């Protein structure tokens, strides 16, 4: 597994101080992810603590309107409200095995921070979460959740105060405290072995889906759709299907407010769609950057997709044509957010709403479609209230949230 090269993407572009820890992690990853006892404990905890398996739900109203059988993989029902726990719990267990008693993590939307705080509390690890100032503002409930579970939340005001800057700061912490600290990276990004390891920990999503859809529909789906920021729910949903050539895989990135680049900002987060090859946060991958190689600030209404890079394996799968990159912009995602809430009684995370939005945009998804509903939308209510005409009706709710 260590020799996995994603067509020139990937690698280990990190300061020398971190290399020994990364080598140690590689060893632990290879040893424990194939170790029956470890896997058994991981699965048991994902079951009785996390609530796996998550359901695969046939969405009746959406299906009827679209004219296809639409199934939602309900990662929103995983403990914590997003797929992030799969990875955080796995890495926290690995940290224990490596005798590290402190875990740190970056977070964008706060979902990965929350998942890491949960796993750390459950496994009795010290926990510190780095989060951009801007994200702290737009994800207050998650900040409070993390603190409730005993994690320290450290605001990062460098750069744009979003996910990319939080990763920089977490890497700096790791380089300082590497001897007793494990960095629970939140997506399929970063230096090897993180992209492969996080994918393997998230692959449970696709394994369950593959089994469930065969039980429900009697066959494999024509397409699997997932949103992509860094790409952990994407790779998790896709991995079990990668050799099923008849199953189309769609990665939906945040189109933000438009795909053109202005000044130093990309008003989107579509690195798979329009990014160029470069090195960021330890890996060679596709990035939003200017011609000199300076990283551009990304944008998305959803904090969890607001990232200038993407997982190296996903970049590779797009290059080879196995994964189709698409975008949904802020407006389309908001519409999908409202529509799914109204039609199915399921409030999706704004991130997942990008995947749902593809149902309205893409004509040839086929007769049986799986959408990975990577998280629930409770954390986004504030953002949505500000963005939509519901603002007036929701004023009372907003006061409640601010308290």
């Amino acid at each position, binding site marked *: 597994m260590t020799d996995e090269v994603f067509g020139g993407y990937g*690698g*280990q*572009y*990190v*300061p*020398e*101080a*971190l*290399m*020994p*820890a990364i080598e140690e992690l590689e060893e632990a990853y290879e040893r424990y992810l194939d170790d029956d006892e470890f896997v058994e404990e991981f699965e048991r905890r994902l079951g009785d603590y996390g609530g796996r398996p998550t359901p695969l739900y046939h969405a009746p109203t959406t299906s009827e309107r679209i004219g296809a059988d639409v199934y939602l993989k309900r990662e929103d029902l995983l403990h914590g409200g997003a797929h992030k726990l799969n990875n955080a719990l796995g890495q926290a267990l690995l940290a224990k095995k490596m005798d590290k008693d402190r875990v740190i993590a970056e977070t964008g939307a706060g979902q990965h921070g929350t998942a890491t705080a949960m796993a750390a509390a459950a496994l009795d690890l010290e926990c510190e979460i780095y989060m951009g100032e801007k994200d702290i503002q737009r994800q207050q409930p998650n900040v409070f959740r993390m603190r409730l579970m005993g994690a320290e939340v450290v605001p990062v005001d*460098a*750069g744009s105060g979003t996910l*990319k800057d939080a990763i*920089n700061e977490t*890497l*700096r912490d790791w*380089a*300082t*405290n*590497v*001897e007793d600290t494990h960095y629970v990276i939140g997506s399929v990004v970063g230096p090897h072995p993180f992209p492969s390891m996080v994918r393997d920990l998230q692959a449970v999503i696709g394994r369950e889906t593959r089994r469930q859809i065969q039980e429900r529909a009697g066959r494999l789906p024509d397409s699997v759709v997932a949103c992509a920021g860094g790409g952990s729910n994407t790779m998790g949903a896709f991995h079990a299907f990668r050799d099923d050539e008849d199953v189309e895989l769609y990665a939906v990135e945040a189109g933000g407010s438009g795909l053109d680049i202005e000044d130093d900002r990309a008003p989107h987060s579509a690195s798979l769609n329009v990014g160029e*090859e*470069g*090195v*960021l*946060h*330890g890996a060679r991958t596709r*990035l939003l*950057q200017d*011609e*000199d*190689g*300076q*990283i551009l600030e990304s944008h998305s209404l959803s904090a969890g997709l607001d990232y200038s890079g993407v997982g190296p394996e996903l970049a590779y799968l797009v290059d080879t044509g196995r994964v189709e990159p698409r975008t949904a912009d802020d407006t389309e995602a908001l519409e999908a957010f409202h529509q799914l809430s109204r039609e199915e009684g399921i409030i999706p995370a704004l991130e997942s709403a990008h995947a749902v939005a593809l149902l309205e945009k893409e004509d040839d998804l086929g007769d049986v479609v799986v959408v990975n509903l990577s998280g629930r939308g409770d954390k986004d209510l504030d953002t949505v209230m500000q963005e939509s005409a519901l603002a007036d009706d929701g004023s009372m709710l907003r006061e409640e949230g601010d308290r």
Partner: protein
Amino acid sequence: MIELPEEPALITYFTAGHPRDVDVADVIEAFERGGADVVEVGLPFSEPIADGPTIQNAITEALDGGMTPDRYFEAVASADVDVPLVCMTYYNLILQRGVDDFVADCKEAGIEGVIVPDLPVEESDELHEACRRHDVDLVFIVAPTTTDERVERIVDRVSGFLYVQARLGTTGAREDVSGETYEALDGLRGYEVPKAVGFGVSEPEHASEIVEGGADGVVAGSVFVDGLERDGVEFVEEKARELKQGAVEGGDS
């Protein structure tokens, strides 16, 4: 190629483009007057993961002020000095310019070495090859966590000098010299390549102690970045002189 003097060396760092109103060549020339033996000129990258707050802020200001690789090479080339220059930057800027073109541009601008803090020896084949082609040194960092096995690999590929990271963490001025520094120097005693210790060096006493501990030189950065902003190039010259003096005294004792 970089050649360190017989006596203990002073290697200095600043970020090109910070402060905005200070000319890059003026800073380099002030370092030379102050007795620096090598000057590292930082080429700012938007995601400086190995740098502490002082240099991060300098980088942000330099980028906001419009510093680019093109302007960097032009500014460095205009410095009228004999002191060897080293380019310190992150790998993505090298990659986007084209690895060979980048090193060729370094050479053309009078730069004799390159340090890339996010490029471990495993990923350095292409840059190493380009440096060899253009007779430019490739400096590597050895950290307190670096294992003996990794030291072998690094020493095998390093040229110019070995940058010994005095402590874990990021760059930035500190109050004292860490015990890790002496341990690291002891571990490296058997290797011939010159060893320069950086990360946290800000006072002449640090320089003396580090040289007494077996280093061939010291590297100081954040203290200059900070001082440049406060007091301009006069500070640089004066502080370089003090640190060089400290290093030399460490060698005498």
